[in-house]
C-alpha cells in the first residue's frame, strides 16, 4: 500500500459518476419521455387504406341515377423512384413534362416514403398501355379507384358532386379524411356523405428500414376491411325528371313535384342544369370553372334556393285559415268593385265581379276577396290589437312550412321570407295594422317562398290538412330504412272539412271555362290548381303554376316556375300538365305530343349577362297590382 492508494477512489468514483450519467440519460429516454416510443411506432407502422365503392343512387323504380366507374391513378413513392425516361412516361400518360414535374415535386413534398398521386384518373386505355411498361419506371405504380358515372346525365343539382377534400374538410372531420380523399360537396352526395362513402378499410402494415412491407401488425387484429357505401333509393321518378329537364331546356326555373301522401319528391328540376358527368374525371376542374362562370348559374338549386312570391298559391291558404277561424264560411260573399281599399292603399283587382263567394274568389283569383278575409282575420274581437292578431296569423301560416326551411335532405335550403310581428313593430313602432301588411293577403310584399314550399302548400291541400316533410331519398341501404322525420305528419291546424270548398275553387280554376288555368286541364283527370303571373322588375313576368291531381286521392302535387316567361298559362301550366299526365297516365296523350315537342324547343332566356342573379324578383299576382309603398321601403 503506497501513498497513491487513495487514487483508487478517484478512479472508481469516476466510473460510478459516468455510470450514473449513462443511467440518468437512459432513464430520461426510456421512462420519462414517450417521444421516442411514439417515433418508433411511426417508424414501423403505416396504415394502408383500402377504399370502398361509394353508394349507388337509384330512382324510385330502381333505375340507376349514379354509379361507379373504375379509373386508375398513377402513384409514386418518391424515394423509390430511380432515374427514368421522363419523356416516355409523360407520353404514355399524356401530360406535358412541366405538369408532371410539378406533380412529382408535390408528391415529394408530401412525403418521400408514402405513395403520392402523380396523375389521376387515367382511362382504361392509358392504363393498359402503361401497365405493360410500368417495370421501366421503378417507384411508380397504378392504384385503381372508382369515380361517379351518371348514365342519364340528369338531376345534377339533386345528386350534387364529389370533389377532393380541402384542408378545411380534413380539419373539420377531425382527421377522418386524408389528403386525396373525395367528399360530397353538394346535393345528396353531401347530405348523405356519411352513408354513401362507406367505411374505409385499414391494414396496419409493418415496414422495415428499407420500406419493405413485413406483414400486418398483430396478425391483423386491428385491421378492418372496406365496407361499401350504402345504396340510396331516391324518391325521384327518372321519367318525370327527364321529361321535366327536357321541358325546361333553355328556360330558367324550377319544377317540383311531390307525392302528397308520402312527401316524396318525384321531380326536382332546376334549370339550367349541367351535365353531372362533367364534374368527374380529369377535366372536372375545368368544367367546374366553366359552369361557375355561366350567366344563369347552373349551380343554383332553384327549387330550394329561388325566392318567388307565392302569390296565388297563398290565396287558398288564406281562405282556409279564414274558414278554420270562422270569420267566413263558404257562402260568405264580398263585393268586388275592382279593388280593395286598405287605408290609403288601393289593392287593385283585374276584374269587377260584384259579389264574390269562396269558390268563385279562388277560381278567379280575386284579390278583393283575399283582402277581405285577411282584414277579417286580423280584426277579430278576441285580439287585443292588430299586432297580436298578426302574430297569431303568422304562426298559423308558418305551420304550412313558410318562412322556414322544410328540412329537405339537401344542403343549402333557404327559408323563404315571412316576417314576424316584432319585425313590423320595430319598423313601424307600434303604429301599424292590417292595412300596413295588406299585400300579404295575396301572397305578395314581404313574403317569399321557394318552389319547394309552394309545392308543399299544394301537398297540404291535397292531403286535406297535413304534409310530410318533402324529401328526396325514400330508402337507405339494403334494409330500405327511411328516416323517421320523413314519415311524420305535420298538421297545419285546419280541419279536413274546410278543404273541400277551397278545392272546389281550385278545380274550377283549371277545369271551369272561367278558370285561369284552363290550359292545364287533362282529359279524364280532375286537376286542381292555380296559375300565377309574377311581375319581375328585371324583365318579363315569371310564369307560375301550382296544383295537384287527381282531386280525390291526389297522387301528385306540383309547382312550376318559368322565369321571364310571361303568363302562367303560357308556360308553367302546360308544363305542369304534361308532367302530371305523364306520371298519372304513364304517357302524354298523343294529341299533345306536338305541344310537348314545341315546349321542349322553346328558349325563354333573359338577355345575358344578367346583373347579380339574386332570385328575389319583385312579384305580382296574376292580377296586376301596383307596388305598395311600404314594400318599396323594405327592399
Amino acid at each position, binding site marked *: 500500500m503506497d501513498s*497513491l*492508494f487513495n*487514487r*483508487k477512489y*478517484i*478512479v*472508481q468514483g469516476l*466510473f*460510478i459518476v*459516468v*455510470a450514473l*450519467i*449513462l*443511467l440518468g*440519460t*437512459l*432513464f430520461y*429516454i*426510456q*421512462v420519462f*419521455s*414517450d*417521444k*421516442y*416510443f411514439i*417515433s*418508433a*411506432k411511426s*417508424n*414501423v*407502422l403505416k396504415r394502408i387504406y383500402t377504399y370502398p365503392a361509394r353508394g349507388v343512387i337509384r330512382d324510385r323504380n330502381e333505375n340507376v341515377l349514379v354509379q361507379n366507374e373504375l379509373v386508375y391513378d398513377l402513384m409514386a413513392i418518391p424515394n423509390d423512384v430511380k432515374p427514368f425516361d421522363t419523356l416516355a412516361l409523360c407520353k404514355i400518360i399524356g401530360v406535358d413534362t412541366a405538369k408532371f414535374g410539378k406533380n412529382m415535386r408535390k408528391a415529394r413534398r408530401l412525403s418521400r416514403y408514402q405513395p403520392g398521386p402523380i396523375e389521376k384518373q387515367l382511362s382504361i386505355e392509358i392504363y393498359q398501355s402503361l401497365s405493360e411498361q410500368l417495370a421501366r419506371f421503378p417507384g411508380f405504380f397504378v392504384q385503381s379507384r372508382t369515380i361517379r358515372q351518371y348514365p342519364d346525365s340528369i338531376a345534377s343539382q339533386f345528386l350534387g358532386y364529389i370533389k377532393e377534400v380541402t384542408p378545411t374538410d380534413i380539419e373539420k372531420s377531425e382527421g377522418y379524411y386524408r389528403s386525396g380523399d373525395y367528399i360530397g360537396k353538394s346535393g345528396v352526395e353531401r347530405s348523405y356523405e356519411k352513408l354513401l362513402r362507406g367505411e374505409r378499410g385499414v391494414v396496419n402494415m*409493418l*415496414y*422495415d*428500414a*428499407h420500406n419493405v412491407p*413485413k*406483414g400486418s401488425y398483430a396478425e391483423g387484429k386491428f385491421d378492418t376491411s372496406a365496407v361499401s357505401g350504402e345504396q340510396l333509393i331516391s324518391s325521384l321518378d327518372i321519367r318525370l325528371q327527364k321529361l321535366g329537364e327536357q321541358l325546361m331546356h333553355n328556360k330558367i326555373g324550377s319544377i317540383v313535384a311531390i307525392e302528397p301522401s308520402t312527401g316524396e319528391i318525384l321531380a326536382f328540376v332546376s334549370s339550367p342544369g349541367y351535365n353531372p358527368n362533367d364534374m368527374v374525371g380529369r377535366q372536372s376542374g375545368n368544367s367546374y370553372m366553366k359552369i361557375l362562370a355561366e350567366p344563369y348559374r347552373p349551380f343554383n338549386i332553384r327549387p330550394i334556393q329561388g325566392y318567388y312570391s307565392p302569390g296565388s298559391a297563398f290565396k287558398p291558404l288564406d281562405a282556409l285559415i279564414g274558414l278554420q277561424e270562422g270569420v267566413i264560411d263558404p257562402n260568405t260573399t264580398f263585393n268586388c268593385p275592382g279593388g280593395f281599399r286598405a287605408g290609403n292603399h288601393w289593392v287593385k283587382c283585374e276584374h269587377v265581379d260584384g259579389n264574390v263567394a269562396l269558390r268563385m274568389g279562388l277560381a278567379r283569383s280575386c284579390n278583393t276577396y283575399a283582402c277581405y278575409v285577411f282584414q277579417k282575420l286580423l280584426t277579430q274581437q278576441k285580439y287585443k290589437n292588430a299586432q297580436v292578431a298578426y302574430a297569431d296569423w303568422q304562426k298559423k301560416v308558418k305551420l304550412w312550412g313558410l318562412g322556414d326551411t322544410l328540412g329537405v335532405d339537401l344542403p343549402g335550403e333557404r327559408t323563404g321570407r315571412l316576417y314576424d310581428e316584432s319585425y313590423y313593430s320595430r319598423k313601424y313602432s307600434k303604429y301599424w295594422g292590417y292595412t300596413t301588411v295588406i299585400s300579404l293577403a295575396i301572397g305578395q310584399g314581404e313574403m317569399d317562398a321557394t318552389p319547394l314550399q309552394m309545392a308543399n302548400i299544394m301537398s297540404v291541400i291535397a292531403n286535406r290538412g297535413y304534409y310530410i316533410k318533402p324529401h328526396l331519398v325514400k330508402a337507405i341501404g339494403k334494409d330500405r330504412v327511411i328516416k323517421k322525420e320523413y314519415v311524420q305528419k305535420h298538421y297545419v291546424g285546419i280541419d279536413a272539412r274546410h278543404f273541400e270548398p277551397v278545392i272546389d275553387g281550385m278545380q274550377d280554376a283549371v277545369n271551369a271555362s272561367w278558370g285561369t288555368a284552363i290550359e292545364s286541364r287533362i282529359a279524364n283527370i280532375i286537376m286542381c290548381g292555380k296559375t300565377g303571373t309574377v311581375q319581375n322588375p328585371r324583365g318579363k313576368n315569371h310564369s307560375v303554376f301550382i296544383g295537384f291531381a287527381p282531386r280525390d286521392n291526389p297522387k301528385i302535387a306540383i309547382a312550376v316556375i318559368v322565369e321571364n316567361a310571361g303568363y302562367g298559362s303560357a308556360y308553367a301550366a302546360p308544363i305542369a300538365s304534361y308532367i302530371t299526365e305523364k306520371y298519372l297516365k304513364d304517357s302524354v296523350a298523343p294529341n299533345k305530343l306536338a305541344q310537348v315537342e314545341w315546349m321542349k324547343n322553346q328558349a325563354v332566356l333573359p338577355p345575358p349577362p344578367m346583373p347579380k342573379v339574386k332570385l328575389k324578383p319583385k312579384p305580382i299576382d296574376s292580377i296586376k297590382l301596383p307596388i305598395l309603398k311600404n314594400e318599396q321601403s323594405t327592399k
Partner: protein
Amino acid sequence: MNNQQNSRFFFNVDWISILVFIALCSVGFINIYASVFNTSESAAFNFGSSYGKQLIYIIAALIIGFSILLLDAKFFSVFSPIIYGITALLLVVVLVIGKSVAGNQAWISLGGGFKLQPSEFAKFGTSLLLARYISTFNPKFRDFKSILFAGLIIGFPLLLIQLQPDTGSALVFLAFMFPMYREGLSGYFLLVFLGMIVLFIADFLVPLQILIPVILAIGSFFVYQNRRKQKVMLSAILVTIIAIAYLFIVKVSYEKVLSPRQRDRIELILGLKIDPRGQGYNVIQSKIAIGSGQITGRGFLQGTQTKYGYVPAQSTDFIFSTIGEEWGFIGCFVVIGLYIFLLLRLINLAERQRSTFSRVYGYCVACILFFHVFINIGMAIGIVPVIGIPLPFISYGGSSLWSFTVLLFIFLKLDSNRMGFI
C-alpha cells in the same frame, strides 16, 4: 489433467469476474440473435449467421481464456516486449495488406470469412509493456523523461491506428492516462485534459465574446486568491493565456484537421446541426429504439426497430439499442450494473496485487473496458459523438471478443498468482 493439477491451475482464480464475463457474453449472444432475427427465416439454429458465428467466438473465447489461466503468470511479464512488438507489427501489416471496411483499413483477412482487427490486440500488447515499464523502472512520472517514455509506448500504436484511420480505437489509448495517474502522474494532467474537453465543447456552444471574459474572470479570481504566492499566481496567469489561445487554435484547426464526417458527428452531438437522414440517422434511430423500450422493454424478439433493421450496425457498434428496446430500462440497468460491478472489482483486485506489474496491468484492463463501455453506450444514447468502437463482450465480432477476453484473463491469471512474485 487430474484434479490436483486442476486445483493448481485454477487456484485463487476470481470466479466472480469470470461469471460476470460469461453473463456479458450471454447478453451479447441473445441480443445479436435478436438483432439479426428474421421472422421469415426458419427457426433452426444457423451457424452461418451472425449469432451462430458469435456462439463459436464465445466458445473459442472461453477456450482462449482458460488456456491463459493455464499459462505461467511470469510469461506475460517476461514476454511483454515481444507481445507488444507482435501487435505493433500487425498494425503495420494491416496498413499494407489490410482490407478496407467503411473507409478504415483495419482488417486482415484470414480467409473463410474470418477477419482479424489488429487494433483490438494492440490494447493488451500496450497494456503489458506499460505495466512492464512501470514495474521495472518505477518512474512515478515526476520527470519529463519518464512521461515521454510512457507516452511513446502508448503513442506508437495510437499513431498507427490513427493512420488506418480509426479515430475511435485510437481514442481508447487515452485510457492509459488512468493507470499512469494511479502510478504517480500528476492529477493536473487529467484536469488539463478534462479542461480541454470542456473548453472544446464550450467553444462551439458559447460565443467567444462571452467565453473569453468568463475565462478571464476565473483566471483573475485565481490570481487574486494566490496573490501572495508568486509561483502559483504566475502559473494561473499562464493557464488563462493558454486556455484562450487554445480556444482560437481549436476554432482554426477544427476546420483544417478534422474530416467533414468527423465534424458532422461532433456538431450533431452538440446539437448544432439537425440531420435526421444523414449522419444523425444512426443516433436518432438508436435513441428511438432504446426509448421505445420504456421501463420493461418490448421483450425478446419483439423489438420492431430491431427486427426491421432501423438501426444500422445493430449487432456491432449499436448492439446497445437492441438491449434498450427489447429489455427496457431494467435491462440497461442490469447491463450497466454488470459492467460497473466488473470495473470496480477489477480495480479492487488490482489494488490487492503485490506486484506493481499486475496492479498496473489491472488498471489498464479496467480503464480500457471503461472507455469502451462509456463511449459505446454514450454514443448509442447520443451523448458522445459516433465513434465506432465495440461494447466489450457484447458486440458481435471475434477480434474484439477475443482481445477483451485475453485482456481480462491475463489479469485474472496474474491475480490468481498474486501471492507469487513476478
